[in-house]
């Protein structure tokens, strides 16, 4: 048995980093007049390679590298593939929608790719300091991206808000790490999991866990740590929001899964009620606030808070089923949310001349394709069967019911009924005839280019696949859940492909 070279453990991250560096170098060496758009294709290519590399990692034995700091397992691969997929769609989306003359296009693509490095690393890290570093890598990229539209007032506002609040949250996380280090004398997750139950300073561990939860819940924009979300989503360009609302959240949820199920499974009685409350708060606050929004992006921001709540409901589930449900939901949510932001980018335009719900009136007549896609993604967000959103909710709430949290499931489903009201408002607005012929003429019909078309196709396909044949993805999520449940000892090395995992 040959030990796996450490470099293979972080192969996707390496590829992404090289891509980012290459994009920046090419950008710097190109003459100023040269169009920067091909750089986006370079970034997309690198991301695709990273995606394949993640899949290839399945053939590696489960284990850690670099002195037990980075892990590869079906769990990390699941989230790697998810994040790379989201980033790829976001890149394709940006390719067609970033204005040709916009400043710093090269940096934009590089930042997206560097952000992906951080997010991927976050899902694989099993060492709290590396977790912190990965979180910072991804956060700093997204802070800059959020303020990418410098010329409007909203852009910098979004970036600064996100940066200040985000730094606070990261600080909380770091304090938590410090306290846990103080209690256990280590930052390696398996060792902490081993030591924590017997640690002398139990209150330190509790405080550490609480602080870490604050930091992570901020990143997933769960209530009551959600206040940054609407402003940032409104200010950031729509393609960035497509990325921002899905990929960092998926990574943060992966971290949350790791923290609660792998780091502190023994404190279940403590974090479970906490997450129950946060889940209920997020759904209710998110949906109630979204009901009143007139700006589509703000509405979707609140809806993303509510979806974080639905996802957190899965944490009420027992072990494997809860983890699998949460992972699945992260994928389903990513597919439909990226899709809907892709449509919104096209309809509203990069400068967002048409941000309001009212502006979507008659969209289906102006552009039948985009109109039907919008209704499709909204239906998925509502949770209509045969779309990804349905099975996401379904698994999440059935995990909750399995875990005995029937009340949580009922609250969640009633909330999704409430949510239908505002999703439907947009859907019905799209289907309503325009007020007058003149209004119709004034609004340009959005064009769908090749790259955006590919992005939309990927999002639609993912949403449909997750809604009609969710079996494969669920199996992958369950395989991941198994590895998270039972942290492997370095000795137990055998090939763990998804296909070969026994199905429970």
């Amino acid at each position, binding site marked *: 048995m040959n030990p796996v070279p450490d470099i293979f453990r972080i192969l996707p991250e390496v590829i992404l980093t090289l891509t980012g560096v290459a994009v920046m170098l090419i950008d710097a060496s190109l003459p100023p007049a040269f169009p920067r758009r091909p750089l986006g294709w370079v970034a997309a290519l690198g991301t695709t390679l990273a995606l394949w590399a993640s899949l290839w990692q399945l053939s590696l034995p489960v284990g850690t590298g670099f002195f037990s700091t980075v892990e590869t397992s079906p769990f990390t691969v699941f989230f790697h593939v998810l994040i790379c997929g989201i980033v790829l769609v976001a890149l394709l989306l940006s390719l067609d929608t970033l204005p040709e003359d916009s400043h710093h296009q090269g940096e934009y693509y590089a930042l997206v790719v560097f952000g992906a490095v951080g997010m991927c690393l976050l899902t694989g890290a099993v060492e709290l300091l590396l977790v912190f570093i990965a979180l910072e890598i991804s956060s700093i990229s997204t802070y800059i991206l959020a303020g990418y539209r410098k010329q409007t007032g909203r852009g910098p506002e979004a970036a600064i808000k996100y940066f200040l609040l985000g730094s606070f949250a990261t600080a909380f996380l770091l304090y938590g790490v410090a306290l846990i280090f103080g209690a256990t004398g280590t930052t390696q997750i398996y060792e902490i999991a081993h030591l924590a139950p017997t640690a002398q300073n139990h209150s330190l561990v509790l405080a550490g866990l609480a602080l870490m939860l604050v930091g992570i819940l901020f990143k997933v924009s769960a209530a009551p740590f959600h206040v940054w979300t609407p402003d940032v989503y409104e200010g950031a360009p729509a393609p960035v929001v497509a990325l921002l609302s899905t990929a960092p959240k998926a990574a943060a949820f992966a971290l949350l899964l790791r923290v609660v199920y792998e780091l502190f499974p023994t404190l279940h009685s403590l974090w479970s009620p906490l997450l129950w409350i946060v889940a209920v708060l997020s759904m209710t606050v998110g949906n109630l606030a979204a009901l009143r929004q007139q700006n589509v992006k703000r509405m979707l921001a609140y809806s993303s808070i509510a979806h974080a709540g639905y996802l957190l409901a899965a944490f009420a589930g027992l072990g494997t089923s809860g983890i699998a449900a949460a992972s699945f939901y992260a994928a389903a949510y990513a597919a439909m949310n990226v899709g809907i932001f892709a449509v919104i980018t096209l309809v509203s335009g990069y400068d967002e001349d048409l941000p309001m719900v009212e502006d979507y009136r008659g969209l289906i007549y102006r552009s039948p394709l985009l109109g039907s896609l919008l*209704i499709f993604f909204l239906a998925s967000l509502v949770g209509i069967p045969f779309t990804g959103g349905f099975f996401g909710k379904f698994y999440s709430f059935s995990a909750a019911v399995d875990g005995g949290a029937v009340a949580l499931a009922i609250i969640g489903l009633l909330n999704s009924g409430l949510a*239908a009201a505002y999703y*439907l408002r947009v859907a019905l607005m799209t289907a309503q005839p325009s007020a007058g012929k003149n209004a119709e003429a004034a609004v340009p019909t959005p064009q769908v280019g090749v790259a955006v078309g590919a992005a939309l196709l990927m999002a639609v396909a993912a949403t449909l696949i997750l809604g009609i044949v969710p079996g494969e993805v669920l199996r992958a999520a369950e395989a991941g859940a198994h590895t998270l449940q039972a942290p492997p000892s370095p000795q137990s090395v055998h090939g763990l492909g998804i296909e070969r995992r026994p199905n429970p």
Partner: protein
Amino acid sequence: MNAINESILTLILLVPLAGAVLVALVPDRGKLPNWIALSTALVSFGLTLHLPAHFVLGQGGFQFAINRAWIESPAIFYHVGVDGLSLWLVVLTGLLAPVGVVASWNVIRERRKVFYALFLVQQTAMFGVFISLDLMLYYGFWELSLVPMAILIAMYGRKDGSKAALKFFLFTFIPSAPLLVAILWLYAQTGTFDFATLQSLITYGSFPAGPLSWAAFAFLFAFAVKVPLFPLHGWLADSFSEAPVALAMVVAGKLGLYSMLRFHIGLFPVQARAAAPYLIALAVIGILYGACLALVQRDFWRLLAFAALSHLGLIVLGIYGFTFTGSAGAVYQILSHGVVDGALFVLLGVLYDRYGTSQINAYGGLASKLPQTATLFVITSLAMIGLPMLSGFVGEFLILSSTFAGVSRGWAIAASLGVILGAAYMLWLVQRLFYGPESELTASKPAIDLDGREFLVLWPLAVLMLVLGLAPSLWLNEIQQGVLRPQGNRPVALSAPVLPHLASTTSSPGEGQR
């Protein structure tokens, strides 16, 4: 033939869906979408006719069943099949599809593609509801049926479609949240979504009684809103006045009523029996309340809505009377109501199309100008009232007589009062629309009687009403078999009447045919 029997239900599901995709793909030129939709609807109707032709009477269980694994975990199966209960409902759904297409032929003038594509998706969803035997599959189709309906009401509403669509969607979507939780809870307890397995597990297994009755209540609540049962009918009148004719005829009634019979009584007989007295009371209140409100409506769509509330109340009365005859009568009445209501919607749609208003007092004296319309309208109204020899009579008679004999005389008398009121508002409507002096509106517009297509749709429906009324045994055999099934092969209901102070009745399975 076996190969067909084994795939017929899948075909029935897929044909409308394929038609929808085809409609969505072809260019929106001329009547092309209409023709595709019509041929799809006819093909799917033809396919549904295969079912009664090859249905084996006396063979218990579900026929034409297909059971394949769909999703491994949780174990969701693509399990479909029909029995006597769902057999005719599937055929009725198939029949109403071409009727709906023809009824929309000239009415839907814009955006035909969207309309017909969604109409056909709706068709698939309804077939799915009637033939699913896996609770998750059923729930999937149940929810799916909401979407095209809501969008079509919003897009083709007469005045304020959006509002009606939102109301319709939320009214039916929110109650399905507890329904899903109840289904998930059953799954958590048993590990299966399969209808038949669950049925026997619930009958013979030991479930905690409290949660089980909550689950039963969640089922009931979702269905009662969908039917709708008084006092959950808030969405009905708006949907009736806004929905395009082709959809209005399927918006209320059969989905909810079938679900009650199959999944509420079928899965939770004990709990259903416990709830029956309350449901009977609500049903009778609904019958009278709906009839009274129908009397005072000035808008004929709203009149039809409250009339439907009244008639659906009668069917609920039959279902929850727990007599064999009553249940058979209820299923029969669902069929009859589907046909009669469908025809009425088409006829009122004809008037609305010609004169552009649904205010009853704007009409008058149409009988001489539109003789065909008037004739058909009178026939349909009489069928609705329950005139002997027409379709409404059989079901009403079975329900009322079984209620009188087997449940409670008081409720039966009260419900009969509703029937009398029904005659009053229908005949008064006929009188106001078609007789009396000619109104300004009808005098000012050119009189255009039924055109060929409408003629072609309405007369078969009228003939069907007559056949349903004259030869009920053609249908009742299968229905009775289906009604029997949930209780095992013995009409358990007969030995245990709902209201304890009444003596049990002695009706036999054959009684309904007489």
